[in-house]
């Protein structure tokens, strides 16, 4: 399934924000990612992990950030592209949906106008744009789409708004979809329906997807490959089954143990991770996770671990991982 060249290749991406007092806050460090055609990568992490900053920087949505590194989209470095070129790519080549469907939609513009705007800007006729909008909305599970074109966002439920957002991000047939927490604000049954919609749509179009989530369970059935982030760094990545069934990083293990299970006996305590994620600026030398880690030893406070191979495509950034490291070093 994987063609030889990735359509998106992010190398050594680092992002800093300057605070008011002039100090630099590193929110993302040396991030690397390769996305192939049709592949689905889930980027998972808690608040402050850098996942949304990473995703937003692909489309250069963070003008105030200082970033370095390289983002190659089909061979073109987006970090060096003109803003005009980036505008062309947004929507047409790379579509993005955001977490909060209500604040991402224009409250005084009809659903039909908002979705077809993406096409109209690119010179598609009004009639054709409207027809394509109807077809797409129907495909995304909005019943009675022709009559819903003139509705406003407030007339839609949360799940329906999320489908509209999805329609906006894919109507110009991009080759990559970036979905940032698209189901987080939704009720569990609606979440399941929206996930089914995204799953069906992306597999039918063979659409490469980067799915950002704080919830491991939500991505379990959707992703091929999972990247786990913590405090601005990738701590573990690998094929989805490896990450869930054979986690190598104590943080990944801790996240999985923190999820209450419906099968678990209620007498058993949850194995929670102690402490809190360090803020940017309070991230000292060594391993960023060491203060919360029960495997931490002295090395962890003096030396930052590298991202090393532990299995087939499975990488972990830990001095004392739960699985043995392979001998050969990876380039992480």
């Amino acid at each position, binding site marked *: 399934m994987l063609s030889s060249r990735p359509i998106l290749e992010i190398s050594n991406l680092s992002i800093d924000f300057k605070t008011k007092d002039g100090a630099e806050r590193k929110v993302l460090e040396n991030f690397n990612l390769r996305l192939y055609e049709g592949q689905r990568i889930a980027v998972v992490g808690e608040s402050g992990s850098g996942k949304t900053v990473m995703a937003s920087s692909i489309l250069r949505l963070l003008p105030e950030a200082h970033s370095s590194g390289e983002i190659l989209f089909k061979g073109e470095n987006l970090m060096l592209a003109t803003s005009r070129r980036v505008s062309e790519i947004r929507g047409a080549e790379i579509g993005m949906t955001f977490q909060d469907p209500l604040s991402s939609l224009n409250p005084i513009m009809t659903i039909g106008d908002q979705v077809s705007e993406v096409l109209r800007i690119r010179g598609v006729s009004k009639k054709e744009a409207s027809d394509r909008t109807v077809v797409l909305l129907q495909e995304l*599970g909005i019943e009675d789409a022709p009559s819903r074109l003139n509705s406003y966002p407030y007339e839609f439920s949360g799940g329906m708004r999320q489908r509209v957002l999805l329609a906006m991000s894919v109507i110009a047939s991009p080759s990559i979809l970036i979905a940032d927490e698209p189901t987080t604000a939704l009720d*569990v049954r609606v979440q399941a329906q929206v996930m089914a*919609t995204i799953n069906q749509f992306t597999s039918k179009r063979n659409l490469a997807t980067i799915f950002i989530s704080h919830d491991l369970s939500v991505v379990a059935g959707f992703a091929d490959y999972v990247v786990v982030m913590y405090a601005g760094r990738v701590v573990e990545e690998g094929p989805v*089954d490896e990450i869930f069934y054979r986690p190598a990083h104590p943080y990944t293990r801790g996240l999985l*143990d923190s999820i*209450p299970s*419906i099968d678990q006996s*209620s007498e058993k305590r949850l194995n929670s991770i102690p402490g809190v994620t360090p803020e940017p600026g309070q991230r000292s030398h060594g391993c960023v996770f060491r203060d919360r880690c029960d495997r931490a030893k002295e090395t962890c406070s003096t030396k930052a671990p590298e991202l090393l191979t532990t299995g087939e495509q499975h990488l972990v950034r830990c001095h004392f991982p739960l699985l043995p490291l392979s001998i050969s070093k990876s380039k992480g």
Partner: protein
Amino acid sequence: MSDISYLEALEVSKVFGRRNRSKTAVDGVSLSVKAGDSVGIVGESGSGKSTMARMLVGLLPPDKGLVAFNGDDVSQLRGKQKSDFRKDVQMVFQDPYASLNPRMTIFDQLAEGPRLYRLYDGEQRLRAAIEELFMSVGMSLEHLNRYPREFSGGQRQRVCIARALAVQPRILICDEPVSSLDVSIQAQILNLLKDKVSELNLTLIFVAHDLAVVKYLCSSMAVMERGKIVEQGDSDSIFTNPIHEYTKSLLKAIPTPNPIAERERLSRAKVQ
């Protein structure tokens, strides 16, 4: 009938809005919670679960029906009885940012209740008790004189739990106390609640949309849909043998950290 209910809702209803545009949030619901029970109220947004919690704690008067505390109608309580009810039934809210006073130190917020109910003889004993409580919820003493803005969401929720416990309540009502927190912090707070409930012999009413979370803390649960309880019973049996279609559909929709099962489920799901 020696088995007196601690807190009981009898056919309570609550309607919001004007007559022609009104919405019935809770529609004739009865729920009885006995001393030592841990009861979950689960449902999706709009199910009426938060309105139910607010009526139980006395923050909202029911339009119909009544809430009884130790057998007495809460709306008729006066004097000492009313003050006992307010002290004995405490609440922890969903949003720890909005539920703390930004201009009061943490100590003052924790001391407010005990001072009101004159629980301690003298400032020194009060401070000692608050300090002990504060540490027992996993906070360190140097934080006691700080302001809410200096804390993370998880820490603020610890403060809110401490504030509720500071007046030595008998019933703790929690309305989605972990839904705004990160997963790793969520587990810490759930464990803290579990420990406190068993250590202090608290009666717990826990409102949440997440059934797995409710099952972790509650031995029984009530499932609400559109203002009504559609299923009620022992948590384990609701999970293993749900009767109502709504409960079944909720249970079926819960994602699990199990890729093989989740792929199977996604491939079967119909896009409606």
